[in-house]
């Protein structure tokens, strides 16, 4: 921890306030596009599609517009259901696979753990877009196009390297003596995991799960290539709110707010954990 008390001896109150004010100004400016998007979501289209207006008659109609189902098109309900299922299941699977793997790399390391770790990280260097063709062909051959399963599998694959890397460093934080004591007491791998490792690494696991959730929820490319008809996710749904005829900015803003709320709220609430997670998981 670097900052101690709010009062620094010898620093004038004025200087302290100035830095604080600067932080506020920059924060607000940086946040502005989000703020404006939320504002626009409550406007009539004619209010949104003109020179920027701060004052207007707010309405919830845009939200109604984007959430009502229009026959044949992807509906808000369908997209959200798909996304929720796909994301939760894939994050669950990621944890189920990554936790034992992280154990094998941190607590009782295999012989070439560094190489294995490098391998995992290196898979992220292969651009997703480069593999789309084989993936698409395989998906078609296995009848997985337009299914949730396809995306579940792919999202698991995308997040696994990150999860393994982060969980490994969290597990490393656990004092070796605790594990050794458990070994002596006869605990099996599962016993050690449940009684010692998971409880102690719980914040780290939460941070890892949150990051995987963010990436899976926001993923667009695989979703739009593989699931354009069924099993479509929220990112796809957002893009259906653009239209070539007529104004759409307010509707788009409303759709965007709905699409982003789950992850943004989760991120806001779990901020501190996520910071700790990125800090420890990434650095070590």
């Amino acid at each position, binding site marked *: 921890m*670097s*900052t101690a008390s709010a009062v620094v001896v010898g620093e004038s109150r004025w200087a*302290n*306030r100035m*830095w*604080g004010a600067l*932080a*506020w100004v*920059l*924060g607000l400016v*940086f*946040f*502005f*596009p989000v703020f*404006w998007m939320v504002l626009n979501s409550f406007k009539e289209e004619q209010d*949104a599609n003109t*020179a*920027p207006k701060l004052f207007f008659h707010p309405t919830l109609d845009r939200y109604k517009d984007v959430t009502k189902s229009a026959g044949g098109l992807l509906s808000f309900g369908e997209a959200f259901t798909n996304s929720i299922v796909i994301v939760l299941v894939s994050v669950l699977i990621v944890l189920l*696979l990554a936790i*034992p*793997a992280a154990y*094998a*790399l941190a607590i*009782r390391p295999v012989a070439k753990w560094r190489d294995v770790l490098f391998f995992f*990280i290196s*898979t*992220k*260097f*292969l*651009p*997703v*877009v*480069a*593999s*789309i*063709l*084989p*993936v*698409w062909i*395989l998906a078609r051959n296995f009848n997985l196009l337009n299914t949730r399963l396809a995306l579940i599998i792919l999202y698991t694959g995308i997040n*696994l390297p990150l999860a*393994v890397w982060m969980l490994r460093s969290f597990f490393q934080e656990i004092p070796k003596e605790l594990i050794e004591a458990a070994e002596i007491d006869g605990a099996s791998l599962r016993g050690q995991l449940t009684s010692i490792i998971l409880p102690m690494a719980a914040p780290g696991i939460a941070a890892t799960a949150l990051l995987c959730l963010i990436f899976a929820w926001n993923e*667009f*490319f695989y979703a739009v290539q593989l699931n354009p008809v069924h099993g479509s996710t929220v*990112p796809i749904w*957002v*893009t259906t709110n653009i239209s070539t005829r007529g104004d759409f*900015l307010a509707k788009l*803003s409303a759709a*965007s707010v709905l*699409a*982003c709320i789950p992850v*943004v709220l989760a991120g*806001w609430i779990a*901020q501190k954990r*996520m*910071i700790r997670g990125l*800090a420890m998981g*990434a*650095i070590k």
Partner: protein
Amino acid sequence: MTTADATTRTVRPGISRRPLSDAWRRRLPLLPALVFTILLTQVPFVMSVYYSLTDWKIVPPSPREFVGLDNYLHHLFNDHFFTDAVWVSVRLTVFPVIGAIVLGTAFAMLLDRNFFGQGLVRTLLITPFLMMPVVVGLIWKNQMFHGLYGVLNWVIEKLGANPVEFVSRYPTVAIGIVLVWQWTPFMMLIMLAGLQSQPADVLEAAKVDGAKPFAIFRQLTLSHLRPYIELGILLGTIYLIQVYDQIAVMTGGGPGSTNVPYFVFQKSIGGGWEFGQASSYSIVVVVASIVIATIALRVLSGLLKGEEIA
């Protein structure tokens, strides 16, 4: 008294089974994740290699014939669209990474003090990273950069200048700005972790030793932040090389905004339908990524080595 070798397991009543050798016990938990990843990443890769050695086209339909290295030798480097895409990739990776790190560090330093509402400011600052890339692309294009109603142009007009069609006239810059906006929070969090991991007493010692705040930053903090900056560069590069979403929704390709992933997409299932050639481009990208990866791995191993000494 049996001298059982590693493969036989004799079970005798009252005596527990001879366990799997220690090495295998250690490997076992790793296998599911490892096997999954290998299947999911290596199989498509091998398929891509195979396709890249053919002249597979969908339009006009023709039988797929094996042509060896034809794609690589004759088409690849003559295709100036490809080299253009490479340049765009470079510009859309290097500058946003640098921009996000510089801005992220600045924000982290501002946030690293105690002031009223510090948590709230931090909440505001991390939000762009949490938002959906397609949303970010669409919002910036239609709300901020818009030629007529865009917020930026409103400010520009108030300052007396003429409005600018950002996305159509300066696609690279526009996308670059969006990427910086979205990735600065990520870098900020990494730098914040770095700043907060500095031992407080070292900073106090520097104060007692007479160092002014800027001198402390330059002489102590920066070198402490080095591994964090390297990590930011590593992770930022990995993710930014693959940017697709923002390009798709903001410009749909086009000169100045087509990076290599988008180009490969265009060449294959995005309308070009030239699977053979597109695959060869993919493989080139993979090779290039491996080269970059090797360099980055040196950075990584430096980071990992540091953890053993400390």
